[in-house]
């Protein structure tokens, strides 16, 4: 026998907005630009995202060589906050669905 799901609990979960499993995550991308210094981009990645030096440098070099790098993954609202913060630093950042 399987117990019937308690509807109240289910509603509570939905209301808390935790059903993101079915949704595609979003990513924050930082794009290469010809102006910003490599040392500055790396510093921004460390000071804002909390990456250690090696990880910050790795992602900065990805931006430099590949033209872009993913710097964060998560829900859309969070990625929007990151993008706005990057624009505040003067970095060129966008967000999109992870599979796009």
């Amino acid at each position: 026998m399987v117990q019937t799901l308690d509807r109240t609990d289910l509603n509570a979960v939905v209301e808390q907005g935790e059903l993101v499993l079915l949704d595609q995550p979003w990513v924050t991308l930082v794009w290469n630009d010809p102006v910003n210094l490599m040392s500055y981009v790396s510093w921004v990645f460390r000071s804002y995202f909390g990456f250690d030096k090696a990880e910050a440098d790795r992602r900065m070099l990805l931006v430099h060589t590949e033209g872009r790098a993913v710097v964060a993954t998560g829900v859309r609202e969070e990625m929007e906050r990151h993008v706005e913060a990057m624009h505040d630093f003067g970095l060129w950042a966008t967000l999109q669905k992870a599979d796009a």
Partner: protein
Amino acid sequence: MSGFSRSRSGDVTGTFSVDEARIIRDLAGQISGLLTDRVTHGSDPALDRLLPDAYRDNDDNAAEFRRFTEDDLAERKVRNAGVVVLSLDVAPKRKRVSIEVDDPGVQSWLRTLTDIRLTLGSRLNTVDEAPRTPQDENEEIMLSIYDWLGYVQETLIRAIDV
């Protein structure tokens, strides 16, 4: 030597010639004016770079994001430029301007130097990292200021990167 350094006590200090200080103050003021007097999005490549689209392939999302964030973002940039202008507003000693910059000041300086360089880069049509040949005297001046401010920013990053 102009630029920033960290003293033994940990303070970040900047030293500039009177002319250098005036140039930075003028340019920071211009950034402030550019952002304050901005009109519609899409009419100035420099502004589009200072306040870029948050979505690349979705104009509706980009416009909505802009509606909710652009004014605040521009206001913060204007405030940062104001901090830079104010910090340079000191009497020079022996033709040098020497300033001490606290932690929030460093944040403003880094961002404003970036915003100035983004704007100069946009005006100069910078598309790659390679040094470009100036087309006239005005471009030559802009280009040397652009490079010099990159150096100043580098000294500031080195001063705080301990």
